[in-house]
């Protein structure tokens, strides 16, 4: 999604001369064009993430909505207090951009993974976390972030393209809708592609992709599907605590939607204490195609 991200940032910078981009010394092979074209508004803040978020708050206060870019764990955990105090409490237009959310950085190891980022950020005042699932979502998320103006987190990953034309511009997107569903699957982020693959040839399961946390929008399509199936499976590249599954359960309870069955597949850390690609970690956590197929076969 870095390519789509850089292209969209370029467009936004072209049309709004107030925007500022800060990077924590990262962006090789992606951000060079923005750096050279908008040198006065592109700041390499060095390997100093806490300062970078403070800077962004100061810039936003002075009328410059800012993007803060780093690898997801560095952008989120190192800077959590700055995000909470300097950005969120004041409702400043600062977007934290975390590249490689979840296990996105694969073999780079645990230092580079972020599976608790949404749990850390989504409860903060005024904060909206955006988790694009497909490459095409990045543009929509950035448009929303710029329009909404407040604190935001954009969790980038390795996204695939949309499998078929779907309605872009919905916070919970209908990826697959069937006439008589027995199960409603709700995913968040690029892991959606495993659900799409697992559902090939399956005609009685609905699939949705949720773009935000907190859940900003609960569409009638999603509500109708859950009302009809009373059976929900959440698939998220995030820990069980504080992610989509927990947010969703609260929402379903408030909406008084009755469930017969609820299951959530989450990131499980490093159960075998070994490391590998994103696909490897998905498999270890049971987020892979086969695990989803097994669940479908038995439920």
């Amino acid at each position, binding site marked *: 999604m870095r390519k789509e991200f850089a292209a969209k940032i370029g467009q936004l910078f072209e049309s709004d001369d107030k925007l500022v981009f800060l990077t924590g010394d990262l962006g090789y092979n992606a951000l060079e064009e923005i750096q050279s074209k908008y040198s006065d508004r592109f*700041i390499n803040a060095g390997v100093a993430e806490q*300062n970078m978020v*403070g800077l962004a708050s100061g810039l936003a*206060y002075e009328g410059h909505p800012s993007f803060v870019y780093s690898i997801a764990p560095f952008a989120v955990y190192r800077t959590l207090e700055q995000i909470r105090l300097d950005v969120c*409490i*004041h409702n400043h237009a600062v977007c934290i951009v975390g590249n490689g959310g979840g296990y996105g950085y694969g073999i780079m190891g645990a230092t580079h993974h972020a599976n608790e980022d949404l749990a850390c950020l989504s409860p903060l005042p005024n904060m909206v976390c955006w988790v694009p699932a497909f490459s095409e979502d990045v543009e929509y998320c950035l448009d929303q972030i710029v329009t909404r103006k407040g604190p935001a987190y954009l969790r980038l990953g390795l996204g695939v393209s949309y499998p078929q034309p779907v309605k872009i511009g919905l916070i919970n997107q209908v990826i697959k809708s069937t006439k008589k569903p027995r199960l409603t699957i709700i995913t968040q982020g690029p892991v959606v592609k495993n659900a799409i693959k697992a559902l090939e040839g399956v005609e009685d399961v609905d699939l949705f992709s949720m773009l935000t946390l907190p859940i900003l929008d609960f569409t009638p399509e999603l509500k109708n599907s859950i009302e009809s199936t009373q059976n929900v499976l959440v698939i998220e590249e995030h820990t069980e605590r504080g992610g989509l599954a927990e947010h969703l359960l609260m929402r379903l309870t408030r909406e008084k939607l009755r469930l017969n069955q609820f299951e959530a597949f989450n990131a499980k850390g490093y159960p075998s204490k070994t490391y590998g690609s994103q696909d490897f970690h998905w498999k270890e956590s049971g987020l892979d195609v086969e695990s989803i197929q097994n669940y479908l076969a038995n439920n």
Partner: protein
Amino acid sequence: MKQLELRRKLLKLYFDAKCGHIACSLSCLDLLIALFGQKKEDERVILSKGHAAGALYVMLNHIGEISDNMLTTFYQNGTKLSAHPSANSFTNIPFALGSLGHGFPIASGMAKAKKINRDSDFVYVLMSDGETNEGTTWEAAHFAVANRLDNLIVIIDRNRLQGFGGTDSVLGDTAAAEKWQAIGFNVQEVDGHDLKALEKSIQRCKQENLGSPHVIIANTIKGKGVDYMENKMEWHYLPMNEEQYENAMLSLEKVYYA
């Protein structure tokens, strides 16, 4: 005399509220008087050592932003005047501060914005010397030099006492002039209770804006003006009883009328 008048207000504020953070407010009060005397209306002073909120509140009361009536709500339920400055209530409190190490990066961002906007205003940030223990100080310091933020004036309230010991006995003098010089700051060291000297040093910063950010290391006395509080770490925390309050007021008279 402003130094006496605001100290009286400050002591009354803390006595009425029966709370601590008195000595650290007294050590930086003169710095605030000098800064508010020198800054333009639209310029901002970032009080990064937010635990000295009382000093800021009496200063803002003095310039008319906080009314006498509102000042009496300090520390009470429902107040806008919490023990550390809170967000979104006053023009001259642009950020909620009190977790140390936040103000300098924010002020650097504001100064950078002014550079982008080709705005000639200055940004001021007041830190404690203990606060310079924080790593963000050194992240922001290098950023300010690398980005030639000569519109940024850092003032350090160097009273040589921090939360649980003298600065020398904790991490050493992390506010020492050599450190700032080595990074590339325009450094001045000044008596932090001498208003004329402070004003002069602020003016010098404004005149010598040749690419380097500025730091004024203000040597101060924790508890300045109240004899029994001076250089006493415990007066970071203690509230005054009635007798102590009376003695404090008497001490002020002696110091500022002598």
